[in-house]
């Protein structure tokens, strides 16, 4: 009997001390972590919408959309995150679109575990820059070889699946955002 009491006592004590210590550390660290995440989002938004100077966060139908404004307070476009399956694991993107939502202004890769050297090239400037001011009235197209036309981008050599995944993720989320913005009172 005495043994059991001692066991329970020791474990409870340990749990209490550990819980106390952890709550102290997390009190200290949580605000910093949150600030880091905000900073990363801010950087990504300013990357995809070059002329943005400030932004407001709003949530419509469960989708977080960032309204970006320039220095004079004009609306320059919207940014939103999009994610989906890549060749390996999930790809998470920040997508920036113009105020009328028919032009993609730019994209940034927030998270991807594509094969380095092949699919990993989606992080590269030469792939991402294809999405700068890309006219996308319907869906964005993808060409494997030859020159891309209006509204199309060229796949990375040897990494067709990753390129396709990025385009598909953008197209899916773009149409969702379009319908949200057209019914969402804007």
């Amino acid at each position: 009997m005495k043994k059991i009491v001692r066991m329970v006592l020791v474990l409870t004590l340990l749990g209490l001390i550990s819980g106390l210590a952890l709550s102290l550390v997390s009190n200290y660290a949580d605000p910093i972590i949150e600030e880091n995440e905000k900073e990363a989002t801010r950087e990504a938004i300013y990357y995809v919408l070059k002329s943005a100077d400030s932004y407001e966060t709003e949530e419509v139908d469960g989708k977080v959309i960032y309204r970006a404004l320039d220095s004079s307070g004009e609306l320059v476009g919207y940014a939103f995150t999009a994610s989906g399956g890549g060749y390996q694991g999930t790809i998470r993107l920040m997508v920036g679109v113009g105020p009328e939502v028919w032009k993609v202004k730019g994209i940034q890769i927030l998270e991807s575990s594509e094969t380095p050297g092949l699919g990993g090239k989606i992080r590269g400037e030469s792939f991402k820059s294809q999405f700068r001011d890309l006219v996308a009235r319907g869906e964005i197209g993808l060409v494997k070889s030859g020159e891309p036309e209006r509204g199309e981008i060229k796949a990375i050599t040897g990494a067709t699946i990753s390129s396709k995944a990025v385009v598909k993720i953008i197209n899916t989320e773009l149409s969702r955002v379009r319908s949200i913005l057209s019914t969402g009172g804007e």
Partner: protein
Amino acid sequence: MESNQDSNYRLSYSPHIHTGTKTSEVMGGVALALIPAVAAGIYYFRLDAVYLLLTTVLTSLLSEALMLKILGKEVDLSDKSALVTGLLIGLVLPPEIPLYAAGLGSVFAIVIGKQLFGGLGKNIFNPALIGRAFLVAAYPVLMTTWTKPVGFDAVTSATPLAAARFDDVLTPLSRLFLGNISGSLGETSALALLLGGLYMLVKGYMDWRIPCAAFASLLGLSAIIWGIDPGSYSPPVFHLLAGGFLIGAIFMATDPTTSPVTKSGRWIFGAGVGIITVVIRAWGGYPEGVMFSILLMNAFRPLIDRFTVPAPFGGDRP
């Protein structure tokens, strides 16, 4: 007992009768049988082919000698197996690959694929294919950049398999047969490979069962899926002639060390190679699947041998 008409060299379970044929003779014969393929490669790709083959053969021989020395064994290259490995690696690489990468593949093939497993006769996987697999993983871009043969426009272009898979373009069979296509150095000309295979068959350096089983299963399965949906799959003869299937089935699947020793086992082994190749080509992520299919079947070899051991006369199956 079996007649000796079709072959004067064979590996089998006991009882054994030694015919006097040595490893060095078989390996020398394989090297001779590769001459048409080497010649075709040099004809189509000129100096690139010469440099590439020199690199792979020399590095293979050198790393074999070095490893034997480090491991404290007798340094003896006269069994010619390192020569054959070097030739085969050169023949399954893209002709334009940088020479240091080709050399690295050969070193990997001999050191890790062969000597660290115990050397000649003890390796589980075909060393040349290990070298190629390493290069595919190490330099995926180099290993998928193909040039058209010299004398046409020397620009990069898709292999017939990749063209059929991704762009729905079928290369004419006559060009596949003669070899005027882009692809690995030795896989371009079906004619040259078949000539070599015929020579090995006549001289008895390989067992006809493995290539036969592989050809039959490849043709059979691809005919079935082509018959069901000719729009999305390639015809069977195309599968036979395109890509690395012939060089794989004739020269790599028949490697005596890494293929089963029993007759029924060889049928199973060859059939597996053909089926997995078609499966990977038709539904896998890569346009070509010969390398993986042979390596996979290599891994199954001990299992196949165990289940196909013949019963001793008057006894039970072991």
